[in-house]
């Protein structure tokens, strides 16, 4: 809710009345529906389930081969397979959002109905966020299944599990917001997907870069780069260490990109 309040203040628009919320719900329903009648939701769901299963298997192999420091949770979210699925999800979920409407010309019908730009941006982003949350749910089943088969002999740290999904969600909304922004820039879905993918990967590499050359950098710089390093965040959270700094970092970047998206969508109104 604080998101909408913040937005509203930015625009200096009236109080958040029933009608405003109802328009938002109408738009959200439509967006969610669009996800589930097109194959996109199911393809992404299948992709994430398969790769999630593979990375889980990889984590099991690590634990089987030798005694190890991390838990099953740590190794699952460190598998390369996990990162593979991670980067493909965002372009697939967000490329359509604005690019398709631009191509069809429906932005014109949309914005000649009494709706505000933040309602449209908010509804599209929220729909993507809901879907993103849904696609990670089956992967929880892997842990549950392991627990059930082994009769609780493998230790699954609950705190680490919660932390992992929390950071996964935080990183997710940031990447989704970038995807929304990319989609609002173009009327071509492929271009939107490429922009979104590139931005996500670049952000990730920025973190990796610090880990690779970190030893040759001054200490203060390593500190700074750790602040943006997704790999580092995952490492901490999968150990059950919940650090609020990355959470705030991702939340503020999400807001930044949503605001940028809003500005792009509203651009025609300021282009005098």
């Amino acid at each position, binding site marked *: 809710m604080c998101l909408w309040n913040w937005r509203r203040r930015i625009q200096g628009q009236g109080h958040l009345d029933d*009608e405003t919320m*109802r*328009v938002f719900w*109408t*738009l959200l329903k*439509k967006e969610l529906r*669009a996800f589930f*009648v*097109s194959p996109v939701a199911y393809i992404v769901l299948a992709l994430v389930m398969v790769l999630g299963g593979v990375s889980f298997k990889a984590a099991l192999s690590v634990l089987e081969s030798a005694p190890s420091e991390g838990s099953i949770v740590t190794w699952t979210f460190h598998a390369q397979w996990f990162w593979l699925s991670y980067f493909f999800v965002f372009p697939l979920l967000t490329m359509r959002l604005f690019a398709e409407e631009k191509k*069809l*010309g*429906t932005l*014109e*019908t949309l*914005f*000649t*109905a*009494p*709706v*505000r730009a933040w309602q449209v941006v908010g509804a599209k982003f929220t729909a993507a966020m809901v879907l993103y949350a849904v696609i990670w749910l089956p992967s929880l089943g892997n842990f549950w299944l392991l627990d059930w088969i082994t009769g609780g002999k493998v230790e699954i740290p609950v705190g680490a599990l919660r932390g992992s999904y929390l950071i996964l969600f935080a990183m997710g909304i940031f990447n989704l917001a970038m995807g929304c922004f990319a989609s609002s820039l173009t009327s071509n879905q492929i271009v939107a997907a490429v922009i979104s993918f590139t931005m996500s990967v670049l952000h990730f590499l920025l973190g990796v870069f610090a880990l690779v050359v970190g030893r040759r950098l001054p200490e203060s710089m390593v500190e700074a780069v750790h602040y943006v390093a997704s790999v580092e965040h995952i490492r901490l959270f999968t150990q059950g260490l919940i650090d609020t700094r990355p959470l705030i970092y991702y939340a503020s970047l999400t807001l930044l990109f949503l605001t940028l998206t809003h500005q792009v969508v509203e651009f*025609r*109104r300021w*282009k*005098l």
Partner: protein
Amino acid sequence: MIHVHELTKQYAGRTAVDRLSFDVEAGEIVGFLGPNGAGKSTTMRILSGYMPPTSGMALVDGHDVFRESLEVRRKVGYMPEMAPLYHDMRVKEYLHFRAELKGLRGRDLRHRTGEVMELCAVTDVRRRVIGNLSKGFKQRVALADALIHRPKLLILDEPTNGLDPTQIRGVRELLRSLREQHTILLSTHILHEVEQTCDRVIMIHEGKIQACDTPRNLTRSLRATSLVHVELQSATDVAKELEALPGVRKVMTSKTDKGWRAYALRVESQTDIRESVLDLATAKGWRIRELHRQLPTLEDVFVELAAADSGARPFG
């Protein structure tokens, strides 16, 4: 209903609409006429609250289109050019969604959706996916959407674009039936349509108003010439004699057939020379089997206006 004053819109250095001023009264059907790129769509987009003008003012039912955009959008039913729709939705579903967006609720929503589907004759396709519909149906779904919230003002950008003649007639009848409840501003480049439907025509060319009048007055008061067709029997070519009649600008011989000669006389539009042609024929002893006058259509007016450079505006 609409008050436009000195409205200007510039895109990246190009002036699409140039100091446009006009008014539309409640209950009128006004046709916006002009060649492609004349600024029709731009003006309509501004009036529907989609984008702001560069300068000038536009009021819809007393509300400023930029500062009170939401208020304006509640009062305006706008149908964009090419009727953009969500291709993956079904007709009824789409209209429900639009009605909800525009603030209709509950029983009223269901009732009104049924009503506009009936009005626009899309009830039979209400369960079909929009992407699979023909152009004519898509156009009518878009029209139903524009109507659904009972707007005071309907702004239709080329509502008959891409329709076949029967469908065009259908849309025309529909618009006439709607005039009771709505003020209508429509754009088109089919002149015939404006002549048939509109109370008033605003002709624009390169962003400027060229003429604004009833279709009848426009055709009458214009420089455009009318044609008089005459077919007569005489031994020799009589083009010279016909050309000597007052008001005749030019005589074209169209065909000769067993002594029957057909001529087309280009005449200034205010003059009627049929009687003098008949008098001349009686005097010379020619037999006449056809004599009729063809009034200038808006098409002629249009071509003439479009050809005229902006310095020589016939209506100042």
